[in-house]
C-alpha cells in the first residue's frame, strides 16, 4: 500500500522535556489514522512537524515523497498546498467573513481564477460541509461546531491530498461531535484524502479511524484497529478506555 507520510526515529524536545522519543509512523493513501494520547503527550507537536510548523530535533519526516525539514520556503509552500490542517480552535481569520476566509487561501494559491470560478469553489466547499447559508457570516457569529466545519471547508478549498485534524471534536457536545466525525469520514470518501486525526476522544477514534496509534510516553506503544488496541492489558490504555466510556 502506498504511503503518503513516512516518519522514522523522530525526536523532539522542548528544553529538558522530551516530547517525542523516536517515533515511527506510516500513513497509507486514503486511510484515516487516529493518533490517540493524553493532553500534553505531543500529538499536536507531531502534526505541526508534519506541516513544517515546527522543526524536529532529529529523524526523517517525509510527506508526499519530500523531506519536510529540508525544504526551503518556496518548495515547502508548494507542499503545503497539498495539505489541509484543521486547528483545534479552527483558527478562522476573525476579521474576515466566512466567504473571505475561504477565498483567502484560494486566490493566493490558484492564480487567474475568475470571480465566478472563485464563487463556485467557495460554494462547493461550503456545501461539502453543509454550511452554504453561513457564507456571509462572521466567525464570531458561528457556534463551535460551525467553526469546525468552516475550518474544514477552508482546507478543502485547495483540494488537499492529506488532511491533518487537531482535536476535531474538542469542546463540542456529543451530537455535534458525531456530526464532525461523520464529516471527516465523508471528506475521505468524497475527496479521497488521507488523514491523521489527533484526538483524546475515543468516540471520535472509533468512528473515524481505520487504524489507531496510541502515543504514550513519547512513543507509539500500541497500533492497530480500535478493538485490537484496546484489547491490551496495558493499564495506561485500559485507564484511557475506562475513563472515556465508563467515566
Amino acid at each position, binding site marked *: 500500500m502506498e504511503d503518503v507520510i513516512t516518519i522514522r526515529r523522530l525526536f523532539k*524536545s*522542548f*528544553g529538558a522535556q522530551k516530547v517525542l522519543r523516536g517515533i515511527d509512523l506510516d500513513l497509507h493513501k486514503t486511510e484515516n489514522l487516529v493518533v490517540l494520547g493524553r493532553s500534553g503527550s505531543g500529538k499536536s507537536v507531531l502534526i*505541526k512537524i508534519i*506541516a*513544517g*510548523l*515546527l*522543526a524536529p*530535533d532529529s529523524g526523517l519526516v517525509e510527506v508526499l515523497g519530500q523531506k519536510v525539514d529540508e525544504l526551503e*520556503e518556496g518548495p515547502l*509552500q*508548494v507542499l*503545503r*498546498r497539498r*495539505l489541509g*490542517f484543521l*486547528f*483545534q*480552535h479552527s*483558527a*478562522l*481569520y*476573525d476579521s474576515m467573513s466566512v466567504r473571505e476566509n475561504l477565498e*483567502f*487561501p484560494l486566490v*493566493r*494559491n490558484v*492564480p487567474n481564477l475568475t470571480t465566478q470560478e472563485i464563487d463556485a469553489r467557495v460554494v462547493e466547499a461550503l456545501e461539502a460541509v453543509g454550511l452554504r447559508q453561513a457564507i456571509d457570516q462572521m466567525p464570531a457569529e458561528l457556534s463551535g461546531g460551525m467553526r469546525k466545519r468552516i475550518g474544514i471547508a*477552508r*482546507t478543502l478549498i*485547495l483540494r488537499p491530498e492529506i488532511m491533518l485534524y487537531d482535536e476535531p471534536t474538542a469542546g463540542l457536545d456529543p451530537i455535534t461531535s458525531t456530526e464532525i466525525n461523520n464529516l471527516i469520514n465523508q471528506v475521505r470518501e468524497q475527496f479521497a484524502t488521507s488523514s491523521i486525526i489527533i484526538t483524546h476522544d475515543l468516540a471520535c477514534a472509533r468512528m473515524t479511524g481505520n487504524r489507531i496509534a496510541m502515543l504514550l510516553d513519547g512513543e507509539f506503544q500500541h497500533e492497530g484497529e480500535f478493538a485490537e488496541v484496546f484489547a491490551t492489558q496495558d493499564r495506561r490504555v485500559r485507564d484511557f478506555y475506562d475513563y472515556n466510556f465508563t467515566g
Partner: protein
Amino acid sequence: MGAISDRAEARPHLFTPDIDAFFLTVHSAVVFVLRFFRSLVQRPFEVREILRQCYEVGCRSLPLITLTGFVTGIVFTKQSRPSLATFGASSWLPSLITIALLRALAPLVTALICAGKVGSNIGAELGSMRVTEQIDAMEVSAVNPMRYLVATRVIATTTMVPILMLYCAMIGLLGSYVDVHAHELTSLRTFFREGFQEISFIDAGFAVFKSIVFGFTIGITATYKGFTATNGTEGVGRAANAAVVFSMFAIFIEEVIIVQIIGWFRSW
C-alpha cells in the same frame, strides 16, 4: 519563526540562560527583519491590504494628530513668547516655532503618537492572531504571513508617518498662528512668510527622513512583537505593551543619532 526558536531551545547554554536568551532574541529579530526585506520582492504584492493598512494607520490617526499638533503649536508659542519678549524679539516667534516644529517637535510627536496608537494596535492584533493559531493557519495554507501581515503593515507605517508628520507640522503652525494672531495681530500670510524664511529644503528633507526611520521602526517593532507573542491572552497584552515601549525607546535613540548626523552634515 517557531521553528527557529524551537531549534535553539534544544541547545545547551553557551553562557548564562539570560545572556543566551538575549542573543537568541537579537538573532530572531535580525532574521525577522531579513525575512521582511525578502518578502518585499515576493509576488503577489498585497496592494489592497497595503492600502487598507495605510487607511488604518493614516486616516484613523488624524483626529489625535490634529489635536496634538494644534495644542503643541499653541503651547509652544505661549511658552516661548515671554523669553523672546525679554529681548524684544517677539517678531521671531513664527521663525522659531516653524524651525522647532519641523526640525524636532513634529517628527517626534507624530512618531510617539503613532508608536502608542498604531504600535499597540498592530502588536495586539498580530499577537492575538499568533496565539489563536491564525498565523499558523496562514502558513499551512501556503500563504506567506510575512508578506500579508508584516510587509503590508511596515510599508503602511513607513509611508504614512512622514505624511502625518508634515500634517502635524502644518496643524502645529496653525495653532501657533492662532496664538500669535491673538496677541500680535499678525496676518496668516506674514506668519507663514516669516516662518518659512529660516527653513530650507534640508530641514524638510531631514524631517521626512527621520519620520521614515521612525515609521519603519514602529512597524517592524510592533509586527515583531506581535508575531512572536506567546502564552495566550497575557502574551497578547505583553506584545502590545512591548511594541509601544520598544518603539518609543528606539525612536528616542534614533532621534539622538539622527540629530547628531544632521549636525555633522550642516557643519560640513
